[in-house]
């Protein structure tokens, strides 16, 4: 019987030890425009399923599987198909006599899609095959979509890593080059200190004189860690008077020392006191010694500060990416926001006035930490771009009955009403080509609603745009899932 039901052609694997059944099925499938291959038992079927693949994807669309077979029966075959990740999604239609319903039920429970009673009815076979083909096409489409989705998110992740790296390079560059410069200067300062030491030692200082030096040393060390309170004009005056004083006493390179001496708040009075305790010939050695002592101590401090800053940035980066931590962990949203703010500090510093109104008693919530940070980053970068880097951003956190609410508000020009409904759509961007991926807010939306079962909405008018995000304390909780 030739059926006129519209059908798409499929590639069907017939698995039956009975040659009459194989002939009948093959005939019916050919009539319906399908292609087929045949196997006489489960082992042959699995061999075919594994060999007839392209890029790890089986070429077959549907398996017609008999239950009672020698070598390997239908149950074992079905089990192996379902246990093989490359084959598991293949629709399997069981072939069975009407008195085998129990076996069919067992197979359906094991993952078979459907069954076909014997003797075969071609119309029924056609309907079953087409339903399975449609189901498989849907699953294939879904799989392709999911793969595309993963790739898109991966590419957005790379883009945001790129932006982060640029920001990081900028942030790290300052403290690192400061520390590098200081360590080079330290070399010279230590050389000077050694010279001064030898010169002072050559004068065989008395115990009293050594005591005076120790006192000056304490004074200098104290000054190193203090910020000078002197204004520029007073300092310039002091430098000038020191330079004159040194020149009068024939100290070479007096201009070089006067600045250093002024930095440590050394005045003429202290200088005179120092000189009166030592022979005049020792003056250059004393000046060299005190300025070198100051340099060595302040350079060491600068290096320490530079490294401290690098260490802070690295910690923020670790916090931001949740390096070496489980994907889902107990996250404090305030910390998560702070880590994100630290990462985009370079962009914020330019001209954004940041206001924090954090609920200090937020509970830790179950969350994918690094993904949440990506969501914040995308929303904040979007806001900064919209504001052209100038204006105010206010971040509020609140705890409201098993939910944490985060509000990110900016006073930028706002999102025009006609595009407010599109901002979470993939590839929707108002930025010029090449500057945005059009995925930033889509990804934030996916991370918040898809991964954390939360909510995100935007309320925007000129001068005020507010993203409100609500995340449940525990997104794995059934009550949240059943909402």
């Amino acid at each position, binding site marked *: *019987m*030739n059926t006129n039901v519209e059908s798409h052609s499929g590639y069907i694997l017939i698995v039956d*030890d*009975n*040659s*009459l*059944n194989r*002939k*009948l099925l093959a*005939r*019916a499938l050919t*009539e319906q425009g399908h292609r087929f291959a045949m196997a006489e038992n489960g082992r042959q079927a699995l061999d075919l399923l594994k060999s007839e693949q392209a890029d790890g994807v089986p070429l077959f669309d549907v398996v017609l599987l008999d239950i*009672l*077979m*020698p070598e390997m029966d239908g149950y074992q075959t079905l089990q192996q198909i379902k246990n093989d990740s490359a084959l598991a999604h293949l629709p399997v239609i069981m072939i069975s*006599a009407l*008195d085998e319903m129990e076996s069919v039920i067992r197979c359906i429970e094991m993952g078979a899609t459907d069954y076909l009673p*014997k*003797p*075969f*009815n*071609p119309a029924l076979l056609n309907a079953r095959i087409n339903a399975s083909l449609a189901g498989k096409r849907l699953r294939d489409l879904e799989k392709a979509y999911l793969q595309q989705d993963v790739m898109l998110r991966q590419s957005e992740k790379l883009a945001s890593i790129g932006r982060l790296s640029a920001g990081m390079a900028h942030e790290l560059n300052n403290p690192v080059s400061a520390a590098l410069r200081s360590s080079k200067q330290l070399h010279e300062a230590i050389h000077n200190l050694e010279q001064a030491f030898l010169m002072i030692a050559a004068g065989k200082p008395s115990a009293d004189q050594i005591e005076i030096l120790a006192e000056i040393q304490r004074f200098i060390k104290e000054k190193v860690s203090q910020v000078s309170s002197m204004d520029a004009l007073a300092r310039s005056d002091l430098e000038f008077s020191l330079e004159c004083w040194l020149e009068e006493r024939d100290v070479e390179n007096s201009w070089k020392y006067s600045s250093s001496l002024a930095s440590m708040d050394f005045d003429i009075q202290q200088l005179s006191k120092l000189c009166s305790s030592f022979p005049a010939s020792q003056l250059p050695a004393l000046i060299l010694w005190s300025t070198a002592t100051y340099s060595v101590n302040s350079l060491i401090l600068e290096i320490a500060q530079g490294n401290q800053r690098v260490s802070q940035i690295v910690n923020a980066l670790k916090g931001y990416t949740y390096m070496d931590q489980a994907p889902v962990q107990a996250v404090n949203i305030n910390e998560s926001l702070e880590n994100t703010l630290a990462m985009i500090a370079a962009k914020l510093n330019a001209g954004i006035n940041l206001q924090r109104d954090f609920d200090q008693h937020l509970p830790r919530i179950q969350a994918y930490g690094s993904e949440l940070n990506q969501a914040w980053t995308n929303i904040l970068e979007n806001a900064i771009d919209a504001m052209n880097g100038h204006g105010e951003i206010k971040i509020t956190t609140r705890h409201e009955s098993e939910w944490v609410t985060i509000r990110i508000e900016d006073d930028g020009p706002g999102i025009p009403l006609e595009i407010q409904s599109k901002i979470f759509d993939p590839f929707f961007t108002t930025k010029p080509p090449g500057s945005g991926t059009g995925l930033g807010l889509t990804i934030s939306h996916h991370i918040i609603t898809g991964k954390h079962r939360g909510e995100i909405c935007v309320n925007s008018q000129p001068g005020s745009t507010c993203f409100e995000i609500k995340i449940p304390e525990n997104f794995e909780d059934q009550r949240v899932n059943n909402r």
Partner: protein
Amino acid sequence: MSKTEVIDENAMVGLMQSIGGDRDFLDELITTFFDDTPGLFSLMRTALASENHEEFRRAAHSLKSNSANFGAFALSHLSQELEEMGRSRLLDGAAERLVQAEAEYEQVRMALEALRSRR
């Protein structure tokens, strides 16, 4: 179905419809049936002697389904009884049933041969 009706006509009409009235293909199916069935009987006899219940059941199962395709319901019912004996691992009386089934197959074979030469 009357006892004398070796091949059920309605079933045969159904089979013809399902293969699009293709007489050549019907002949091919009948030939396949003739080729396979003696093998199934000998398989059942060997399995009975060696008490291989699984193999006995499987051969009976094939004969049941094959004969049903041609509307040979008496043979199909006998095969079903044999299959059940194999499934329940109780082969008492299976030898007699086997003899009955072979005799019934002879009837079926003659009826199908007549059908094949009637064109």
